């Protein structure tokens, strides 16, 4: 397994076939969650809090219930009691009480948009009218919107039961403190010739998937429920919904629909249990679809952050010490990815002395959810900007500076144990040698910036079955919702192992009753872990094919070989047999052939990316235009290069949006003021140049095909890369996101004032 798979000979892997689900998606036939409809189906809508922080004194639903067409209303009273402790649910950790409180507010609302009640009616319009007839009495409390506000003495407490690992029995908004350290930072900084210290603030941003959350719930009188929804993890929807509803997992079947983007945001539940509750009350299927405004107000964005970075380097450009303090907005309930951010913030570099303190803080904002390399983009914005500054101080090219300090195989990870084979330096070299980086950037107010990023990638559990049909074609069944073309990869891996043309393999994403447990599509794990299960399942089918051919030839299995898609009898001159020729004889040799495998995948190979951007800044407006962008990323092995490039381009575009435009804008009352795509502005195609990609393939020794994950790390570098480019263009170091025109203009004017001032003083 440790061989360099990049030099291995593949027939299918590495090619670019048309994706198997493609035609359905260009003809409008693909069924996304909101496309499901059933006879007698009702439509649900959710009443949401207009306040960021308030006690619910009473909810009156009688008027709404009397509206013709309204069939049922549910509130938190319809939910079973839930326990306040951390539990394992699949691979996720869950606090059942917080989860329940997020589905429908119990006695308090904790953010603008917090769900309070849900209505089922004969049309969505009637359901909406009914919402206006529900009367809620609130006692409004002061909102706590930032890390600073949440941690200052006397701050209003969001969750009365929240305690952390340090403050004993004191109620707090600080859910958790993490600390990582190595060496002696005092000695480290003493050895440094240059020390840079800066504070960064990033705004909360949303994944921005185009498809809103949706769910259709059908509760049968026999106590069996079915949920159709767009999710990254059908099994997680099942276990989490069971948790909230107090139902056994086996009584819920989840059918994953086609999913219109997720990026981490569709790894949890919002509407799913409500659809089941309403269906149970009405006896009819109930569909709920969020509006865009609901998506932004009440699904899980990624935290805003405050990060302080102090780093030191010697004259010759060696990083010697880092001291980092970081606090993330978890949203209304604990669980921001601040620990991940802390473990990634300096992960690309070998630094002998560091101290990282990280805090998870609750605030009156929606509970955050995963977003592509959770917690890491914020962190890299801070560290990669400081590193750029140190490189400049040392007079070293920023890429060379990274290569000099970058981690290689054997270098210690933040936690200590050494990295296995990794491709960080290769991504830096790839950028350094790119035509883009070698080209000269000329013109006024233009600048070029680079930055790098690290992400762990994930393993976890996956199941797969490979069925060989009676005509010798195959289907491959997994439980991983396909969010970016992974079905193509699963078909390609199967085809590669079995020597079939990829068009002879049909990939299926199955529901929770039709395949073994499979964890969520997240952590860049599908091609890695589900791909590993598919590989093993195809190998299992191969073993059975060999046995069957042996039977037909009246030989022993070890006298038969499978090569190049053909079965060969060793030795004598028996002509080889294809799977197609053998398939009609399955019945007489023992029945159908089904290869199976389940894995809890180990051998995860971390991912690195390095990005270079050229920008032009309009000094009069602060508007930044991207001129050119190239990203290099280590994929391990690219199964379908087009979709690897697609992941790299998509992640980069999201990073650019994060850098330049996107932010949650709350007013003083804690009301979100930009809950639509007009004001929460994600990049359009007019905002972006072509995004050039360089796939580095440094095989992951822990995977039979060398695969790492590719879904996430590309989002990490762009924010810092854009900031570094802006500095080169106009001389200002931006320490907050978004670097939108008003904010950048302010910084430019301040900088201009300062330089004129100092010029005058000279």
């Amino acid at each position, binding site marked *: 397994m440790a061989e360099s798979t990049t030099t291995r000979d593949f027939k299918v892997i590495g090619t670019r076939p048309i994706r198997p689900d493609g035609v359905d998606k260009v003809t409008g036939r693909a069924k996304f969650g909101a496309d499901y409809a059933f006879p007698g189906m009702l439509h649900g809508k959710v009443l949401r809090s207009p306040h960021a922080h308030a006690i619910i004194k009473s909810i009156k639903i009688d008027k709404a219930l009397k509206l013709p067409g309204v069939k049922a209303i549910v509130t938190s009273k319809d939910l079973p009691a839930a326990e306040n402790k951390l539990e394992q649910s699949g691979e996720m950790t869950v606090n059942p009480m917080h989860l329940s409180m997020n589905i429908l507010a119990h006695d308090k609302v904790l953010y603008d948009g917090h769900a309070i009640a849900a209505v089922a009616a004969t049309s969505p319009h009637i359901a909406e009218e009914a919402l206006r007839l529900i009367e809620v009495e609130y006692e409004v409390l002061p909102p706590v919107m930032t890390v600073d506000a949440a941690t200052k003495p006397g701050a209003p407490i969001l969750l009365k039961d929240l305690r952390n690992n*340090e403050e004993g029995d004191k109620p707090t908004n600080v859910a958790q403190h993490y600390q990582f350290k190595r060496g002696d930072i005092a000695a480290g900084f003493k050895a440094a010739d240059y020390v840079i210290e800066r504070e960064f603030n990033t705004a909360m941003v949303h994944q921005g998937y185009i498809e809103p959350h949706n769910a259709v719930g059908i509760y049968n009188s026999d106590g069996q429920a079915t949920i159709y929804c767009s999710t990254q993890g059908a099994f997680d929807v099942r276990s989490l919904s069971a948790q909230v509803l107090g139902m056994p997992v086996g009584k819920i079947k989840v059918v994953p629909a086609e999913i219109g983007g997720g990026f981490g945001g569709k*790894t949890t539940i919002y509407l799913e249990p409500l659809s089941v509750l309403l269906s149970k009350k009405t006896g009819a299927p109930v569909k709920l679809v969020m509006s865009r405004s609901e998506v932004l107000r009440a699904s899980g964005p990624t935290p805003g952050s405050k990060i302080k970075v102090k780093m030191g380097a010697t004259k010759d450009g060696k990083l010697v010490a880092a001291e980092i303090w970081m606090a993330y907005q978890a949203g209304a309930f604990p669980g921001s990815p601040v620990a991940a951010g802390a*473990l990634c913030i300096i992960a690309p570099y070998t630094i002998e002395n560091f101290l990282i303190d990280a805090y998870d803080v609750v605030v009156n904002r929606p509970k955050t959810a995963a977003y592509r390399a959770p917690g890491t983009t914020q962190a890299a914005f801070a560290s990669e900007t400081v590193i750029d500054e140190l490189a400049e101080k040392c007079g070293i090219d920023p890429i060379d500076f990274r290569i000099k300090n970058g981690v290689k195989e054997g270098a210690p990870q933040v*936690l200590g*144990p050494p990295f296995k084979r990794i491709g960080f330096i290769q991504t830096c070299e790839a950028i350094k040698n790119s035509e883009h980086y070698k080209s000269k950037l000329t013109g006024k107010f233009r600048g070029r910036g680079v930055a790098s990023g690290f992400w762990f990638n994930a*393993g976890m559990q996956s199941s797969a079955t490979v069925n060989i049909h009676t005509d010798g074609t195959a289907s491959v069944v997994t439980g991983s919702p396909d969010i970016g073309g992974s079905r193509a990869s699963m078909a390609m891996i199967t085809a590669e192992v079995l020597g079939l043309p990829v068009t002879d393999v049909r990939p299926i994403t199955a529901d929770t009753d039709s395949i073994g447990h499979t964890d969520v599509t997240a*952590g860049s794990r599908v091609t890695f872990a589900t791909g590993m299960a598919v590989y093993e399942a195809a190998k299992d089918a191969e073993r059975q094919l060999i046995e069957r051919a042996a039977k037909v030839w009246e030989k022993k299995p070890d006298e038969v070989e499978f090569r190049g898609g053909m079965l060969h009898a060793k030795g004598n001159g028996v002509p080889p047999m294809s799977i197609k020729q053998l398939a009609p004889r399955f019945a007489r040799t023992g029945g159908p052939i089904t290869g199976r495998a389940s894995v809890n995948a180990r051998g995860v190979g971390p991912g690195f990316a390095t990005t270079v951007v050229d920008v032009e800044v309009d000094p009069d407006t602060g508007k930044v235009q991207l001129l050119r962008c190239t990203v290099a990323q280590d994929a391990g092995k690219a199964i379908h290069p087009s979709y690897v490039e697609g992941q790299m381009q998509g992640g980069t575009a999201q990073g650019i949006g994060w850098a330049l435009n996107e932010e949650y804008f709350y007013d003083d009352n804690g009301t979100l003021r930009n809950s639509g795509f007009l004001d929460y502005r994600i990049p359009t195609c007019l905002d972006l140049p072509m995004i050039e990609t360089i796939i580095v393939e440094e095989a992951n020794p822990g995977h039979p095909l060398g695969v790492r994950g590719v879904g996430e790390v590309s989002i990490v570098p762009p924010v810092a890369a854009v900031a570094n480019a802006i500095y080169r263009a106009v001389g200002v170091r931006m320490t907050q996101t978004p670097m939108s025109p008003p904010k950048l203009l302010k910084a430019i004017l301040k900088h201009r004032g300062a330089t004129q001032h100092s010029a005058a003083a000279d």
Partner: protein
Amino acid sequence: MPTVVIPALLRKFTGGVERVEVPGKSIRELVQRLGERFPGIDRQLLQDGDIRPSIAVSIDGEIATGGVLDTVGENSEVHFIPALGGGEV
């Protein structure tokens, strides 16, 4: 003997010591021995008889998947780190 690296915030139980050599062939044994030597630390690591959901175990640089059932080698290095499944749901 396997080495356990104590997470920074649990070092108050070990008097600040970072690396502890602990005999044992499984994570269960290591945690048990740790608890005998540094009373209270085992309760920080366990919940309902298994590793806490908020903690992941890394053995020789790789995230292990078996909780207390995972076996360790004679010279293994074991870290207890925050679980990174995207945090609490």
